């Protein structure tokens, strides 16, 4: 997610937000052995992500999440406006962003 707002420096908040929006996967295999004797073996896959990234990538949510909400539909149909970063339906964005008036130009 690129912020194009002028004079906007990267803060911790932006870094965390961007990390979670991209999703973090930790896939690890740790083996501790002494003298060729395997003592402890740890195998783990860990995912950290924001709701939107998780939803887009089909990450398992706990228990039964109701998928018939507007928020879920938005995630699958809307894209981020390159200028103001708001979520806008793709067709709407092609006519100009309803938030900031960003024009994609002739496609």
């Amino acid at each position, binding site marked *: 997610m690129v912020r194009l707002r002028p004079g906007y420096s990267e*803060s*911790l*908040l*932006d870094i*965390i*937000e961007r990390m*979670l*929006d991209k999703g973090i996967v930790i896939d690890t295999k740790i083996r501790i052995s002494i003298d060729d*004797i*395997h*003592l*402890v*073996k*740890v*195998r*783990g*896959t*860990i*995912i*950290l*992500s*924001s*709701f*939107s*990234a*998780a*939803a887009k990538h089909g*990450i*398992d*949510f*706990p*228990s*039964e*999440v*109701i*998928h*018939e*909400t*507007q*928020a*879920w539909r*938005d995630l699958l149909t809307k894209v981020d406006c390159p200028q*103001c970063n*708001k979520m806008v339906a793709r067709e709407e964005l092609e006519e*100009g*962003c*309803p*938030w*900031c*008036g*960003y024009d994609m130009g002739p496609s």
Partner: protein
Amino acid sequence: MEEEEEILEPEKDTQQDSGLAAVIDRVLDKGLVINADIAVSVSGTELLGIKIRAALASFETAAQFGLQFPSGTDMATAAWNEAKIEKEDCPQCSKRVSTEQLLNENCPWCGWISAKAKAIAKAKVTAEYS
């Protein structure tokens, strides 16, 4: 005793975006998914298996994404109905305003007008004069 006069100058708050409170606020607003499958084995035998499926979010975000609430939660209250309305941050004052109002009218807090609302207003004026 002479005391140096201190001049209080308004300081620009450059940290407003990165404070701990802001980070927590944003993370809860965006929601956090933590999934993990961990297996620990000691000398060939699997001793410990951990499976985590966790979702962390504010009430509002949880309601919007249809997350499960603990049994006995009364979802018919006014606060829940309010939470289910789609909201966005006003680009100017950052207040949470219903998306529909913000897009089609203006921000009730600071008066910010979206490109769409401007276009609607312009179309109205043109229609009146023609």
